[in-house]
């Protein structure tokens, strides 16, 4: 049994909020640079250059990458041999508040969705998963709402053709169009229940983009993974044919990547959720 104090978790969450909002993820920055070299149109290049430059300025001057510092989504993977001393949920919300205050980030959370009211820093959305072992993994993903507003869920028939699922995902990006800060990262959740597919689509966003099939060992599980990775690559190519481009002003880069997470589901259904991220896909992780 490993004992972790709630105070330690609070401090780590606070740090992760600042890191996620100020330092753009390496995989995203590489994706943007690759896109910059790939683009040929002057305007697309100019916009990508501004986006890359923005990431450097944010890091150097300790400014938020985007003024929409999001609704922080906190993922906890809790080893079953971990014992937490103190109030875990309170520690997380306190950590976010502290981090957002210290980082001069935006207070974008209103306490009542209907009556609205004055914006504050919490409560945030917290997901927990139980794992084996004695580690605690914390990920903070500040999700901007320009892109969160473009989320789509569809409950397909179990007999649906893969091509119809592909079309649904590509169409979700098409309907987001220029509005939600393309080039996008497209998170997709397939399987489970309606709510679980949405969770998976969000979870897909904190995985690194552009994974390859090359290094997979053999086996049935890997067969399934290979199919998912190939689907990611097909979708990425199809989405980049949409010519939405950086800022929606045309170009070869409409998405930086597509990440899919799958889960077993019911014989009667096939839930698919698309959760789009803007180009400023931000997250930070720490394992204790």
């Amino acid at each position, binding site marked *: 049994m490993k004992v972790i104090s709630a105070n330690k978790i609070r401090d780590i969450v606070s740090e992760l909020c600042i890191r996620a909002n100020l330092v753009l993820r390496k995989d995203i920055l590489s994706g943007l640079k690759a896109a910059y070299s790939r683009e040929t149109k002057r305007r697309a290049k100019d916009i990508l250059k501004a986006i890359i430059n923005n990431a450097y300025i944010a890091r150097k*001057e300790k400014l938020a990458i985007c003024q929409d510092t999001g609704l922080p989504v906190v993922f906890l993977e809790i080893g079953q041999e971990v014992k937490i001393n103190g109030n875990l949920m309170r520690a997380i919300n306190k950590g976010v508040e502290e981090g957002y205050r210290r980082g001069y980030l*935006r207070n974008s959370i209103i306490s009542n969705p209907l009556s609205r009211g004055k914006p504050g820093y919490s409560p945030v959305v917290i997901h927990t998963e139980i794992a084996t072992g004695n580690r605690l993994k914390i990920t903070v993903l500040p999700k901007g709402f320009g892109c969160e507003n473009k989320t789509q869920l569809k409950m397909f028939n179990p007999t649906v053709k893969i091509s119809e699922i592909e079309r649904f995902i590509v169409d979700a990006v098409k309907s987001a169009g220029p509005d939600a800060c393309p080039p996008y990262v497209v998170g997709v959740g397939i399987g489970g229940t309606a709510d679980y597919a949405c969770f998976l689509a969000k979870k897909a966003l904190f995985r690194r983009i552009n994974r390859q099939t090359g290094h997979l060992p053999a086996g049935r599980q890997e067969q399934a993974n290979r199919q998912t990775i190939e689907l990611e690559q097909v979708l990425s190519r199809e989405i980049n044919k949409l010519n939405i481009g950086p800022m929606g002003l045309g170009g070869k880069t409409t998405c930086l990547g597509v990440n899919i997470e799958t889960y077993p589901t019911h014989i009667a259904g096939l839930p698919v959720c698309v959760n789009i991220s*803007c180009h400023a896909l931000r997250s930070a992780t720490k394992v204790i």
Partner: protein
Amino acid sequence: MKRIKIPFKKNDIKELKTGDRVLLTGVIYTARDQAHKRLVEAISKNKKTPVDLKGQIIYYCGQTKTPQGKVIGSCGPTTASRMDEFTPALLKKGVLAMIGKGRRSQQVIQAIKKCQAVYFLTYAGCGALLSKYVKKNEPVAYQDLGPEAIYKLEVRDFPLIVGIDARGNDIFIRERASA
């Protein structure tokens, strides 16, 4: 690249064409969802708005907190379409330009044409970069709304692209047509 100073001169807006790149210098006002709702409520009740809208530029922006020693924090544009239902009323009150990101509704395009106004785009998701062009930053109304308050910003060479010009040409329709 065109340089424009606010207040606009007589032909400034007329001469702008969709796709033109512009560097803007002068005073602009931030307003987003809740501020729009309040402004339009005030207008519909014939009450005075806290900022005289005539000739003004509205920037759809909710800035972060201001770090110590800086003029402003991260301050990029938010999605313009959420303001669509309020925009015609503000244009009617004399707003001449808006800055945001993404598409606008047909009603907004028609109102822009009718009022001889302009909709600008600026670098979306680049709030840190855009903070470099802001020289003064001061809240002027609805401060209870926090980041959604109306702020008066003084900008210098703020980078813009004309999204919808006074003839109603929409950059996104043009880009789609050329695809």
